[in-house]
């Protein structure tokens, strides 16, 4: 009895690249992914080079320029589009005439660091604890769920204020990240737990168990990849959420201290001006929107690239 060594048709081509490199190659060919990546890189670069930017334009993030606004009209910027001019490429803040470009650049530092680290931390906690709860059920689930209930039960903002105002001034951004994460992870963890509950009973998990997978491996290597879609959505949307939380807390006096600029604060302070100086909102809002958009597009494309396997 003879059997052909390769019953399937032979396909030309060399050895397949490792999946990481393959994915990168796929992404590089994707316009959306490249644009998103470029934008994110630009923002990061801008944050790093903020001092350079202010050196070039000659306006620091807190330099008042009362000459650029009309104090008799409540401080509306002179000129069109919120005072956009060669001097102030993105216009000025109403009332005190601070340069928006400089504030955006410096604000990127605070906002992105806080939002990104809080997102990373909540995701980490949420995924790990949520999966363990969903997987073990029984008392582990009980304990984790009760802790989650406990944390979620507090109206988060009230408690963040209470706790943050009691904490020493110390390193505000770090404290903010910690507090936001402590109150933030249960939201994600619950979603993860719910999905884990339904995935645990899938046959492929049983198969992995038969392969000798330890609990940890089952949870993180078999189930986790199947949660990807929800995770991408939740984490990318967490970023604007946390930028907003930071702004809210800062406004309530427990966030980063003024005059440190942050995107969230800029957006919050722009709201009253929506009718008179809409650009004041549009610029930081636009930067934030594009950041989230880029993160989402990138997340989606990476997922698609992994999913596609060889058939992309």
């Amino acid at each position, binding site marked *: 009895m003879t059997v052909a060594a390769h019953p399937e048709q032979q396909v030309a081509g060399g050895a397949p690249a490792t999946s990481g490199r393959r994915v990168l190659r796929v992404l590089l060919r994707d316009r959306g992914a490249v644009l998103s990546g470029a934008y994110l890189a630009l923002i990061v670069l801008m944050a790093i080079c903020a001092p350079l930017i202010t050196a070039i334009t000659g306006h620091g993030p807190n330099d008042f320029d009362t000459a650029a606004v009309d104090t008799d009209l409540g401080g509306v910027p002179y000129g069109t589009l919120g005072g956009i001019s060669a001097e102030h490429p993105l216009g000025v803040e109403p009332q005190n005439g601070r340069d928006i470009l400089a504030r955006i650049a410096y604000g990127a530092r605070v906002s992105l660091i806080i939002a990104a680290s809080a997102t990373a931390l909540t995701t980490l906690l949420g995924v790990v604890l949520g999966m363990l709860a969903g997987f073990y059920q029984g008392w582990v689930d009980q304990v984790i769920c009760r802790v*989650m209930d406990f944390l979620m*039960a507090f109206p988060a903002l009230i408690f963040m204020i209470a706790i943050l105002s009691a904490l020493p001034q110390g390193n505000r951004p770090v404290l903010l990240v910690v507090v936001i994460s402590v109150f933030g992870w249960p939201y994600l963890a619950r979603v993860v737990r719910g999905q884990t509950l339904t995935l645990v009973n899938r046959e492929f998990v049983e198969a992995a168990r038969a392969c000798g997978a330890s609990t940890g491996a089952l949870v993180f290597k078999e189930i986790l990849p199947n949660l990807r879609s*929800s995770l991408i959505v939740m984490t990318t949307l967490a970023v604007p959420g946390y930028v907003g939380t930071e702004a809210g807390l800062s406004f309530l006096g427990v966030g980063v201290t003024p005059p440190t600029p942050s995107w969230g604060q800029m957006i919050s302070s722009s709201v009253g001006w929506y009718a008179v100086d809409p650009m004041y909102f549009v610029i930081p809002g636009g930067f934030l929107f594009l950041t989230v958009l880029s993160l989402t597009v990138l997340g989606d494309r990476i997922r698609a690239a992994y999913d596609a396997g060889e058939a992309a």
Partner: protein
Amino acid sequence: MMARYVAWPAGVVVILFLVCLFTFVLFFTLQPDPAVMICGKTCTPERIDQIRGVLGLDRPFFTQFFGFLAGIFAGRDYGEGANLVHCPAPCLGYSFQTNQSVMEMVVERLPVSATVAIGAAVLWLLVGIAAGLLSAVKEGTWIDRTAMGLALGGSSIPNYVLALALQYVLVVQLQVLPFPQAVAFSDDPLTWFQSYLMPWIVLATGYACLYARLTRANVIDTLAENFMRTARSKGLPPLLTMRRHALRPALTPIATIFGMDFAGLLGGALITETVFGLNGVGKMAADSIAKNDQPVIMAVTLLAAFFVVVGNVVVDLVYTRLDPRVRITSP
């Protein structure tokens, strides 16, 4: 598995107790003296002590805490002599700033918050899930891209901005809606509806965006399952195929966050209620924080905690309805 259901009521009570205790500790130890707040501009230390005495703030921590707990079950009295006020059984405390029983304040405001929450929830569920489903089905087309672009935009706009912008456009510029007013449904259904419409939209936007994206992501995953092929092979009406077969598996995460989001909103939609001047629990929370009205803060916290915990219980029960496999005995 059965143990989970049995443990619920006990668990809920324990959580609520801990929330109480923690809130109490936090506000007892960390927060400024509410007596100072009440005392006002020209205030003397003696006067502060006097007020503290009236509020019972001079008593030891546990006396105060258990007094509060006892009030919930047995009611309690405040003040003395002619000033005595009685706060009947489910007593969540008494606000000396508004001179009202907190329970009364909550009961007064809960319907508003519930109206806001329910209306918004209906809206965001319908819009969010429908948009997510549509995007998933039309994945990669302009419909998908537009819907998801909007969803991202929507989730990047703070509630506050959206509320004011909406008001500016719909009320001031286009004049299709009046400025929101506090009217009861029974008095004037049309104005009632018009007044709540904007709060609903504002509140629903953020959630709808999240739900749409989540629905889309999960439905896309489900569409790749073999059983979707079976469903299509049956030649069912497309809406039925989508609703029944593709949506159900995507609903687990939706149900989870919906339980939490909705319960959270019953505890008050702080910003939206404030912007539109709705006298709900959220506005009450905001006011009480600004005025450091501790009994009210305590009550709002407890109320929110109660809804969230109950919401989570419901979600857990829903899981087993959503996915029959969850019912199998776990490993």
